[in-house]
């Protein structure tokens, strides 16, 4: 039995792999699968199908994302031989500013180094005048092509699942594949192709977000934001979890995460005093490129079957943060399974599912971390305590370990797993300092 599984589902020199989706999941899967195959003297034929033109500005080339490459991903990619060039990086980030109802607090990178990159996934906002930078997704696509992948602009609109799956476009058979990789996001309709198959795929639940690109000019962006991402941890509007202003070149990306985000939510946020301090008056009167993308909340079920695997946001991703980092982890896990073990359901179950589940479990810790953050965002005395502790930690960051700062840094940068943040959060000394600062704040207010 084991022998037949091995021979049926092992990729060899004549194997063909169809990757549906040319975003980071698809390109990183292709990059690693090709690289690993070469290590064991195999030559795979991988085609990435995506009609999207990542070099084009506006929605046609955009993948609807804030465009932040986390510290851990920048480092991991560099170790893998993918160094993100300055031509792709809009701005290197070395700090975060948290804006709260009880003042602002500045958190510097523990490494004193620019290790976070802001990028455009596509060609930039619609109507961008001077196009000085390259698209991040196109950069990764070129990395995969250099490694030996082929890019096809065909839109795959069907999968026939027989012995070997056949992908179709416009009613015509395009490729009978030894493996079909669904590398798509929750904003695409590609999930429908997989829900119709017998692998039991059900797409994850989603929530809404809001993203807009505000053109402020290079000097204003540098002066007001520098190399820091600005986070809003404010109690109103009540339906937002958090919002961020992410500096790029001449633009700043405003990202709002929460429930039922609409134009009123955006207006209310931008009229808050903290937003007014950073942005010019009547900023939303101007017409900017904007969208209300879906954001993954849960993990998909039935994310793999024989010769089929779903990666990317429509499979398993990190809660609210570091979606591209999750693409790297899941894309690589799928590539490792396919090349070194096989493409059968049992292979994915044994080697891919544990990684998938690890992310699912970590997101449960993430819910707790964000729940706690929400409490600190909404309850004034808690906010004050947090701000005071972080300010003191930042003043003495060379002398002692800034525990709360590092937890906040890792929460908002996506630099560490939620589980590790949760474990660090159980430190009693940190809670003692927080309680002390909360009490001091309460006493000061009553006097």
């Amino acid at each position, binding site marked *: 039995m084991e022998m037949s599984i091995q021979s049926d589902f092992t990729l060899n020199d004549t194997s063909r792999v169809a990757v549906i989706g040319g975003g980071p999941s698809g390109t990183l899967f292709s990059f*690693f699968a090709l*690289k*690993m195959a070469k*290590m064991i003297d195999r030559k795979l034929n991988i085609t990435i199908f995506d009609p999207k033109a990542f070099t084009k500005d506006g929605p046609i080339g955009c993948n609807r994302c804030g465009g932040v490459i986390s510290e*851990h991903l*920048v*480092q*991991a990619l*560099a*170790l*893998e*031989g993918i*160094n*993100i060039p*300055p*031509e792709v*990086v*809009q*701005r*290197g980030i070395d700090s975060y500013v948290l804006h709260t109802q009880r003042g602002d607090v500045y958190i510097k990178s523990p*490494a*004193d*180094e*620019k*290790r976070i*990159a802001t990028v455009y996934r596509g060609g930039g906002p619609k109507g961008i005048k001077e196009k000085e*930078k390259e698209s991040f997704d196109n950069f990764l696509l070129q990395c995969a092509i250099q490694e030996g992948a082929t890019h096809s602009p065909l839109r795959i609109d069907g999968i026939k699942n027989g012995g070997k799956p056949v992908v179709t476009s416009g009613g015509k058979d395009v490729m009978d594949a030894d493996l079909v990789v669904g590398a798509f996001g929750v904003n695409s309709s590609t999930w429908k192709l997989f829900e119709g198959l017998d692998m039991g795929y059900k797409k994850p639940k989603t929530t809404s977000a809001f993203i807009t690109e505000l053109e402020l000019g290079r000097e204003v962006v*540098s002066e007001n934001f520098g*190399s820091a991402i600005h986070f809003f941890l404010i109690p109103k509007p009540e339906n937002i979890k958090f919002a961020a202003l992410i500096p790029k*070149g001449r633009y700043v990306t405003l990202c709002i995460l929460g429930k039922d985000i609409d134009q009123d939510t955006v207006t209310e946020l931008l009229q808050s005093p903290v937003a007014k301090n950073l942005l010019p008056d009547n900023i939303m009167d101007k017409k900017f490129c904007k969208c209300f993308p879906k954001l993954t909340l849960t993990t998909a079920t039935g994310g793999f079957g024989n010769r089929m695997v779903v990666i990317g946001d429509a499979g398993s991703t990190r809660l609210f943060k570091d979606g591209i980092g999750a693409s790297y*982890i899941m894309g*690589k*896990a799928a590539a*490792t399974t396919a090349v070194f073990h096989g493409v059968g359901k049992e292979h994915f179950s044994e080697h891919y599912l544990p990684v998938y589940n*690890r992310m699912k479990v970590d997101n449960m810790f993430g819910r707790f971390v964000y729940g706690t953050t929400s409490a600190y965002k909404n309850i004034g005395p808690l906010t004050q305590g947090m701000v005071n502790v972080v300010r003191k930690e930042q003043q003495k960051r060379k002398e002692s370990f800034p525990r709360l700062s590092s937890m906040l840094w890792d929460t908002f940068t996506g630099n560490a797993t939620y589980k590790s943040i949760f474990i660090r959060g159980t430190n009693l000394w940190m809670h003692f300092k927080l309680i002390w600062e909360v009490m001091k704040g309460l006493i000061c207010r009553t006097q």
Partner: protein
Amino acid sequence: MKVSELGKTYKDGEIICREGDEGKCMFVIQSGNVEVSKNLNGGEIVLRTMQKGEIFGEIALFDRMARSATVKARGEAIVLRVDKKGFFAKACKDPTLTFNILEGMSKRIRDLTHELSKYQENSEMV
């Protein structure tokens, strides 16, 4: 440093890591070149020059000994640091993260073997 560059900029001749120091991190060159040298009998010999994309400082992470050589910028160089703890935590979950590092180390051992054989051949001739 330009706004779109990642890592830390080192000026020409600036030391990035010093022979004998504890190895707490490794480095990936983002742009420019670095020079690897070693103190020998009071003098300094240059072992090699490394360029964009190459990784250095990993030996002290794996053998847990002091830095085996000094590395300094040759011209302006931008270098990204990768911390020991973070790297090993990631490598535990995904051992394939070390493939590229091993490839680089293998290449260097091969180059060293070649250099050594050339050196032995020359000394035999002398």
